[in-house]
């Protein structure tokens, strides 16, 4: 329906235009120079000028982000299975998980480099640390949230623990797991960029967006710095969209969250 499309696209476009207008307004009002607050045109021009470097860096960051994200998904799922399976494990491990989550990654950086080595392994480790907690917490919650009556039913039908896990708890935990993945998808690209900044050692265009942040900063190439941020944002969008797509593919036919309003 034509009118429906307009309704979808108009608000973001309008607010985007408003934002850009505000940007120019702030510059005019405060007189900030381009090396603190470049104009959107300067940023776009820098993006075009540096596009080769930016694209290569984005690819590098994407690899790091994907690596950390996948590791977090797998490890998160396995850890959740362990935590969801036994109360004593849950009580025993959870405080340590919390401590790990709350320790600032900056403090862990030297240790990460010592263990994983600088460069890509270190970056993947940082990305992993930043992304895996939401996945573990959400998935564990999902595994524990099976309907009590359903559990009774399974018991009555003589289901083994394995059958209960496979046919009841795991499928039931899927929406929760995907919710955790959606959160992790927003964190992974940021984590990778931060990791590159923190423990990267690569040069020659393989250093990723985080390395470019350092490099442009040193050279006071501020429009290019903002352009790097812009590309980072776009990378984040790609990640989130991919996971949202996965979410839709796996859930849309049965989950309440996709309920249509015309029933």
């Amino acid at each position: 329906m034509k009118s429906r499309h307009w309704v979808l696209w108009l608000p973001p476009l309008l607010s985007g235009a408003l934002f850009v207008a505000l940007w120019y307004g702030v510059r005019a009002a405060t007189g900030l120079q381009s090396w603190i607050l470049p104009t959107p045109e300067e940023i776009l021009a820098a993006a075009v000028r540096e596009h080769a470097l930016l694209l290569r860096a984005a690819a590098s960051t994407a690899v790091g982000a994907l690596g950390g994200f996948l590791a977090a998904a797998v490890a998160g799922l396995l850890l959740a299975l362990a935590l969801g399976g036994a109360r004593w494990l849950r009580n025993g491990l959870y405080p340590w998980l919390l401590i790990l989550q709350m320790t600032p990654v900056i403090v862990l950086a030297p240790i990460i480099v010592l263990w994983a080595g600088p460069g890509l392994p270190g970056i993947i480790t940082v990305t992993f640390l930043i992304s895996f907690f939401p996945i573990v917490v959400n998935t564990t919650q999902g595994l524990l949230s099976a309907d009590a009556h359903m559990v009774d039913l399974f018991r009555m039908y003589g289901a083994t623990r394995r059958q209960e896990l496979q046919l009841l708890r795991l499928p039931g935990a899927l929406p929760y797991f995907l919710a955790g993945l959606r959160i992790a998808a927003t964190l992974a690209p940021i984590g990778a960029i931060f990791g590159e900044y923190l423990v990267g050692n690569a040069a020659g265009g393989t250093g990723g967006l985080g390395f470019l942040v350092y490099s442009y900063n040193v050279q006071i190439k501020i429009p290019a710095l903002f352009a790097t941020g812009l590309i980072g944002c776009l990378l984040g969008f790609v990640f989130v969209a991919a996971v949202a797509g996965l979410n839709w593919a796996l859930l849309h036919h049965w989950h309440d969250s996709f309920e249509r309003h015309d029933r």
Partner: protein
Amino acid sequence: MFRRLHPLLRPLLLPAVLLATGCGHRAPGAATEAPDGRMQIRFQTDWFPEPEHGGYYQALAKGYYAAEGLDVQILPGGPNSGYLAAVATGRADLGMGDGDDVITAVARGVPVKIVAAEMEHDPQGILFHDEHPVRRVADLDGRVVMAGPASVWVQVVQKVYGVNFKLWPLGGDLARFMNDPQLVQQCFVTNEPYFARERGARVGALLTSQLCPDYDPYRVIFVQDDFLARHPDAVRRFVRASVRGWVDYLTGDPAPAVARLRALRTDLPAGLFTYSLGALRDYHLVLGDPARGERAGLLTRERLQREIDLLRRVGVLDRPVTVDQVADLEFVPPP
């Protein structure tokens, strides 16, 4: 300068080393032979590849290492790369870095030793705007200075010279400096002034050793104790080839090194390399002052002792250490 952020690393270093002793990529002290019979050496630098590492890349590009029967792999560092820990745990055989850091590490029990000077004088200095220059250490009084909070030179200025200034922690960039004509910022004289001038600022730079004549650390090449014990001859050859590379980089045609470095750092402009080389020469950083008997690679007992005494005096070294504990002077190539 940005790399001075790593003083945060120092307290973690010893436990980290103990933690990771099993994690080195090859057994400490072991060496491998390349298929052509050359000995493999992994050399760790302290930062991303940059013009200030040029001597090694020159030696590599012009085959000086090969001529000594060595197959050298240069491992670039970076922020938090832990270049000291890398050498101490065997992830690399030799490394380069700040002389003060290495002395402090040895005093804390890290198993490394200095075997040569990379530079006779460290490139660390301060950057200021021409409108508010700094000519002597007293000019810093009452100024705002951006420096690494645990920097040795800050301790020296405050404790030895009794000058007080407001200290801001070093950020990773020049943005605040560019906007504040009165700000003084710690820098490498071979690096930051170039970018500031490219952005139209009129700036000057001074070495910290010019500010504080008592404080004049080396930039050093160091080696893991175990590797040194097993392969002293290889260390000697490495140092010889490296010094040759540095001399050629500064007095000959630096193009081979610059080409290698530019390939590794496609993000840096050509002008930086020219500027950096010029600064290395003009400040006599690597080759030193021949009138004072300085030359590339030279380590003297007197200067090392003076540095140890200074570090003790400002409290960076909490226990005594001897020159022979931190350095082995017999690997310096003869003139």
